[in-house]
């Protein structure tokens, strides 16, 4: 027993030593976090990067939403902060300020392609052909009826517009930690709100206040939205185009403004609810953490994010080669 005690004491001392030794050791794995939309693409690139570059370790990719990614990214400079933040929207001024305050001054934006946001419902249900104004009218807390702002009276999609199915309104949207939410807000809700023509003197949040009884905010991944649809087949969910494409057996997609969401319609600019995807690189970590530049180049290479590349197979909508070349040049030139 006494021997065991001495052994334990030795082990504790050793563990303490190991802990201090860790301070000195510099990280040699690229650390990425952020948008759950970008996560599948970034994970694939990370894996392929590890396989293609034997001298670098496979980067580690975390999620947490675009906002969560930026808050980790802007925590400071050093081994225990992430190197790259994935984002499904451009960085906000407030986030840049937070970054600067923490000493993260060299932020390099890299756009690598597009994603579309789709409205999808259970495959067994009726078809939906939505327009932004219909979605806005279905979910806004207050809507305009006869020129006055009244509490939302609609209970079924058919009441919003006769062309829609007679199905109770229920919409699962991503919560505000997701970049998807912003695109949804901007391209669908705000667009619909403007079209609806609010009366003079309407409160400022008239465009952004949702009815809590029909709108479910999902803070998790799209699988959570899918689970919501499975438990209540009347729900219409907001998904990424790539997620929908992987689950066409259970989901049915709605058209927006009469356009069927697809890679082609997004690239052509016909489908309104699409957005560019980004990742942000901490310039100060280039040179300290090995492989960051190579990772960026590899990510933007034709075999990954290019036309016909691996990411396209995973649902990314590639941007033109000229655009990619421009972005890569800007990245290599340094801080903007």
């Amino acid at each position, binding site marked *: *027993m*006494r021997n065991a*005690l001495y052994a*334990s*004491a030795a*082990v*504790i001392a050793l*563990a303490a030593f*190991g*802990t201090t030794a*860790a*301070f000195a*050791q510099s*990280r040699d*794995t690229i*650390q*990425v*976090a952020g948008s759950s939309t970008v*996560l*599948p693409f970034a*994970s*694939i690139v*990370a*894996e*392929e990067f*590890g*396989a*293609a*570059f*034997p*001298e670098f*370790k*496979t980067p*580690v*990719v*975390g*999620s947490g939403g675009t906002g969560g990614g930026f808050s980790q990214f802007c925590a400071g400079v*050093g*081994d*225990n902060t*992430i190197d790259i933040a994935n984002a499904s929207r451009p960085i906000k001024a407030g986030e840049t300020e937070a970054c600067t305050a923490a000493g993260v001054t060299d932020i390099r934006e890299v756009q690598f392609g597009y994603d579309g946001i789709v409205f999808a419902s259970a*495959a067994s249900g009726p078809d939906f052909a939505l327009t932004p104004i219909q979605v806005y009218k279905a979910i806004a807390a207050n809507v305009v009826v006869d020129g006055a702002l009244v509490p939302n009276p609609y209970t079924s999609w058919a009441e919003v517009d006769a062309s829609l199915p007679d199905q109770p309104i229920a919409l699962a949207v991503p919560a505000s930690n997701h970049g998807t939410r912003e695109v949804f807000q901007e391209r669908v809700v705000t667009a619909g709100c403007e079209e609806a023509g609010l009366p003079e003197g309407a409160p400022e949040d008239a465009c952004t206040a949702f009815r809590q009884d029909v709108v479910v905010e999902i803070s*998790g*991944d*799209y*699988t*959570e939205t*899918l689970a919501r649809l499975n438990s209540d087949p009347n729900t219409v969910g907001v998904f990424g185009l*790539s*997620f929908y494409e*992987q*689950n*066409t*057996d*259970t989901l049915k997609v709605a058209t927006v403004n009469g356009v069927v969401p697809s890679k082609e319609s997004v690239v052509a600019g016909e489908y309104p609810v699409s957005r560019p995807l980004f990742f942000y690189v901490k310039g100060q970590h280039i040179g300290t953490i090995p492989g960051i530049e190579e990772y960026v180049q590899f990510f933007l290479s034709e075999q990954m994010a290019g036309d016909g590349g*691996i990411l396209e197979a995973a649902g990314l909508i590639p941007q033109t080669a000229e655009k990619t070349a421009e972005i890569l040049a800007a990245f290599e030139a340094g801080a903007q």
Partner: protein
Amino acid sequence: MTDTLSTTRQASLDRTQRIRAGLRRRHLGETIFRGLGLAAIVLALGFVALLFVDVVRKGVPAFTQSNLHLAVTFDPELLKVDPAPVRDAFASQAEYTAASLKWQRDVAMLNWNKVVEASLRAAAPADVEIDSRQILTIAETDARHDIREMFVADPSLLGQTVEVDVLASANAANWIKGNIDRSLGDAQQQLSAPARALIDAFVENGTISNGFAWSIFTNVDSRAAPASAGLLGAFVGTVWMMLIVIILAVPIGVAAAVYLEEFAPRSRWTDLIEVNINNLAAVPSIVFGLLGAAVFINYLHLPISAPIVGGLVLTLMTLPTIIIATRGALQGVSPALRQAALGMGASRTQMVFHHVLPVTFPSILTATIIGVAQALGETAPLLLIGMKAFVASVPLTPLDQATALPVQIYLWQGNENRNFFEPRTAAAIMVLLAVMILLNGVAIYLRSRLEKRA
């Protein structure tokens, strides 16, 4: 006279009846209580059975994988690359390493998909019509890495044909196993009609066969090649964490309990400490995660996503459990044992370490194993210290990035390819449950064995 007799008889009859009624009531009460107890047990077991049946029913299919047996030709026409550098041609080891790395990168940049496609076409029936993109959806995307690694390991394969087993893609596996409804129309299917037909032809001619999915145990997680996603990385991450928990929590916990129970003077302070330890045991695990993120990562600058931080956080969580259990065990030791030891002239330290602790050993061991099993299944604190990241490598040290088994379940649960990952998630749950049952089994076995000895 007869009157008095009959009243007495009447009275005794009444009494008997009263007693009988009372007895019936008491028996009824007992029957009801027993029935309720039994119902509670049946209900609890029923839920456990439901859970197990559901998980096993979903998970078992994931333990079969679809293999593609291909004859891969390393065609020099497709693989235009300089010969591999030889050590003798270089003056120093460093130059050779640089040249070798450059060569490996050149090899990696070759279009290995062409090689995969050629071997798939070679296996297909002659009259099949399918385009490149469609045919490549049949093999998992890591097939080209497997083949490339074979070539890097043995560059002399150029021009030769080798039999290789690669995995069929996740979508192909879904089609073969019927995870996706086979009657759905083209628009709702993941694979194109020619690819589905070719898969069926491959199953027919034996190119595709099903086998036990060793890949679950031997591979790390993968998103690029979902069919090859395995638990090895998460398992090793969990093992590292549990080692740290055992190494730190057991000695510290037992020492703390022994000191508090045997040496510390009874005072307000020790009472306060005792109350706080009990409180700590009830603190939700996510709070420990926040603490870990603040102290170990932000203040001590330990690496994020590393098992060492996870291990330390879980140690904090497990400590109260071990301290409380050890104190309980120490309190249970008969005073006669202590007095006998002291009476024979042993010091208090000798009394504790020679006589008291050995008796409590089985209880401490059980408490440790149960504490570790609890820590094994803990997920919430790990999410907060970055251990839910996607890690595609096996952590070689506790300082490397890793995930853990329960976190892997969480990650797979969120994967986009629902048809493939729902069974995989259940399979991961089965592995985790198996490890837990094993640990608890060991605890029970050791306890009964050691108690007999003691």
